[in-house]
C-alpha cells in the first residue's frame, strides 16, 4: 500500500522519533510511505481552545495537503496520534461548517474517512497484529483519552504489544483516567493538571515498568515531564517506536523521553 504520513506538529518539532518509527515500521512491513510536504498541523489545539477562526486556515492547509488521497494518490493516511486523528474526524468538518465553508467541510470529512490512527491502520486496514517487533522490556500502556473515547481504538494497542517478542506488558492501574494534559488545560489550570499527573505517575511507578507507552506523544510529553521531574527512571516511548524495534535494530531505552 501507499500510505501518506501526517507527522503531526508535535512529532515534527519535538518528537520526530514517533513519525520516524512509523515510517520505518510501515516500510519494514512492505508498504510505501509518502510524506506530503504541504502538511503542518491538524488544528486541534486551536479548536480545543476555542479559536475556531484561527483553526480554519490550519484545517484548510491540512485538507489541501492530504486531499490527493481522494484521487487515489495514496491508499490511506496514517497518523501516529489518537487525538489528531480524533480532531480530523470529529472537529475539522464541524469548524469549517460553523464558519460557513461547507465545501471545505465536505472535503475535510472525505479526507477524514481515509485517515487512520496507527493502531487502526495496522489492525484494521493492514490486518496485522504481529508486526515482527522485538522489545525485551517491561512495558505499561497509557491508553490515552482520545484514543479510547474519541476514536475508540479499543484494545488494538494491547493486541499489538502482546505480539511483540520478549515484551512484558503490565497492567496500568486506573489506566483509563486522563493524565491531566488536556492541551492548554495544562497551562490554564496548571495545578489541577499537575494533581492529575501526580496520580498518573504514581500509577506508572507502581507497575515497575521500564517503559510507559501510548499512541500519542502529547500525553507522553506530559507524563514524561512528571516522570523526569520525579527522577522516576521510567522512559516514555511512542507505540510506533516499540513496534519499529527489531532484533537487528533494537530501540534504545533510557531518559524520560
Amino acid at each position, binding site marked *: 500500500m501507499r500510505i501518506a504520513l501526517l507527522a503531526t506538529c508535535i512529532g*515534527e518539532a519535538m518528537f520526530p522519533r514517533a513519525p520516524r518509527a512509523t515510517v520505518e515500521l510501515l516500510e519494514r512491513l512492505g508498504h510505501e510511505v509518502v510524506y506530503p510536504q504541504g502538511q503542518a498541523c491538524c488544528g486541534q489545539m486551536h*479548536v480545543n481552545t476555542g479559536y475556531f477562526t484561527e483553526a480554519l486556515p490550519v484545517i484548510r492547509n491540512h485538507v489541501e495537503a492530504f486531499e490527493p488521497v481522494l484521487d487515489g494518490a495514496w491508499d490511506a493516511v496514517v497518523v501516529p496520534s489518537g487525538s489528531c486523528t480524533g480532531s480530523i474526524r470529529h472537529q475539522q468538518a464541524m469548524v469549517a461548517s460553523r464558519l460557513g465553508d461547507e465545501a471545505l467541510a465536505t472535503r475535510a470529512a472525505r479526507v477524514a474517512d481515509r485517515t487512520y490512527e496507527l493502531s487502526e491502520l495496522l489492525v484494521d486496514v493492514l490486518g496485522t497484529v504481529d508486526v515482527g517487533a522485538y522489545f525485551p522490556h517491561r512495558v505499561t500502556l497509557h491508553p490515552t483519552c482520545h484514543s479510547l473515547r*474519541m476514536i475508540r481504538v479499543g484494545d488494538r494497542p494491547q493486541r499489538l504489544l502482546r505480539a511483540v517478542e520478549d515484551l512484558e506488558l503490565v497492567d496500568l492501574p486506573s489506566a483509563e483516567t486522563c493524565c491531566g494534559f488536556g492541551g492548554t488545560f495544562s497551562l490554564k489550570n496548571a495545578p489541577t493538571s499537575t494533581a492529575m499527573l501526580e496520580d498518573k505517575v504514581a500509577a506508572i511507578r507502581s507497575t515497575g515498568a521500564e517503559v510507559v507507552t501510548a499512541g500519542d506523544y502529547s500525553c507522553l510529553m506530559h507524563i514524561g515531564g512528571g516522570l523526569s521531574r520525579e527522577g522516576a527512571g521510567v522512559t516514555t516511548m511512542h507505540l510506533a517506536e516499540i513496534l519499529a524495534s527489531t532484533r537487528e535494530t533494537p530501540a534504545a531505552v533510557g*531518559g524520560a523521553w
Partner: protein
Amino acid sequence: MSVDLGMPGVWAPKGAAQTSGHGAHPADPLRWGPTFPEAAAEALGDRQLRRNLARATSTIRGKRAAVVGEVTDWEELRDAGRAIKTRVMAELPELLLQLEEQVTARGGTVHWARDAAEANRIVADLVKATGETEVVKVKSMATQEIGLNEALAEEGIEAVETDLAELIVQLAGDMPSHILVPAIHRSRAEIREIFLARMDDVPRELSDAPAELAEAARLHLRRTFLRAKVAISGANFAVAETGTLAVVESEGNGRMCLTLPETLITVMGIEKLVPTWRDLEVFLQLLPRSSTGERMNPYTSMWTGVTKGDGPQAFHLVLLDNGRTRALADDVGRAALHCIRCSACLNVCPVYERVGGHAYGSVYPGPIGAILTPQLTGAAGHGDPGSSLPYASTLCGACYDVCPVKIDIPALLVDLRARQVDGDRRRILPGAWDVAMRGASWAMSSAKRFAPAARSARLGRLLARDGKIRSVPFPGSLWTRSRDLPAPPEETFRDWWSRTRGDGDEA
C-alpha cells in the same frame, strides 16, 4: 479527634476559596466565588478533601460500572433517553400545557415562575396561606438553584432539609458540592463533629460509624416529619400525558414529605417533563444505575394531583423558568437541558475528583455544571467567574461515555470556549492567548512557515541539561513549575525525511 470546622455560625464551605469575601450562603447560588482556576488551586491544597473525594467517587464509579455492565440494552436505552429528551424540547409548550391540564384535572394547582424571585414568592405565599412557619423539604436541585431556603427564612419560615446529606450541609452552613451527594466533601469524622455541634438531641457518645450517624439523623427528623403540615419537593420527572410526578430517592425522607403533610408544593424546572407514561420505563432504568449505581433506588414515589384520603390533600406545582428558556434558545443550552441530574459525569470526571464541587462556584458543579451554569446565567465575559468554567476540563470524554442521555459534554465545552473567544474579539487590546493563537495559526497554516518554526525549536536545546529543560520563563513556567520539558531534537522530522528519503512527496 476533633475536626476544625472554622468559626461557628459562619462555617465555610470546605474545599474552595469561595468564602474569601463571601458568606457561606451566596446571594446567587449559580454564581459565587472566584474563577475556577483560583478556587481549584486552593481546593487542591486540602488533603482531607482530596481523600474524601477520591474515596467517594471511586466507590460510586465502581458500583455504576458493575450495574450498567449487566444491562444488555444499555446503549439502546441511552439512545431512547436522548430521543425522548429531544422530543420534550421540541414540543415543550404543548407538553407543559398538557401537564398543567392533567394536574389541574386531578385536583392540583399549577403556578408558573419566570425567575427565582418569582418562584420563591409563590412558595412563600403558599406556605403563609397555611399559617405554618416550618416546612420539610426533599432534596431538590431546583430549590437549591433559586435559594428557596434563604428566601423562606427571610419570611420567617424555617425550611428543614430532610435528606441526610442535605441536612449535613444545612447544619454546617455549607454549600452542596455534588448534585446527588451534597456532602460528598465531608468525611464521617467531620459529619460527627457537625452533628455534635449542631443537633440538640444527639448522644454525646455518638461515634463516627455511618450507621450511628444515620440513626442520629433519623431520630432527629422523626418528630419534625410527624408534625410537619407543609412539604416542599422537587421532581425527577413529570409525565405530561398523565400529570404524574415522580421523586426518586433512597432514605424514605422523600416518602415522608410526600405522604404525611397536608400540603405539598413541588418546584420543577420546565425541562423535567417526559411526554408519555411509557417514557418512564426508560428513565427509571437509566437514572438509578447512573446515579447511585444501584439496579433500582430504594424508593420511588409517584403521584398524580391529589388522591382522596391518601397523602397531601393540597398539591401545588410550580413550573420554573429561571434561565431555562434562555438556554433553550441556544444549541448548547438546549442539549444541556436534556440532563437528568444523575451526577455520573461528576463521578467520573478527573477534574471534579481532584477539586470538588465548590470550585465550580455553582450548585451545579462538574462537567454538566460547567455548561449549565453559564447557560442559565448567561455568563459571558471575563468579569464573570462562570466564564472560566468551560475551560475546567481536559476534554477527556469520560463524562460523555457515562451520560445516560448521551450529552456530548466535551463538544459542548469546546463550543462554549469558541463563543468566549469570539466574544472577546471586540476587545481593543487582544489578550496574551489571542496573540499566541493568532501567531500559531499563521505559522501552522503553511508548511513554508511551519518548517522553519519547527526547526527553531532546536534553540530550546540551549536551555536543556541531560536532555531535559527544568525551567523556562512565563508562560512556559506554568508548565515547568511542576513538569520538565524534553530537549527539542537536533533534527525535525521534515529534515530527517529530506536527508534520508529526498524532497519529493510524489503528490
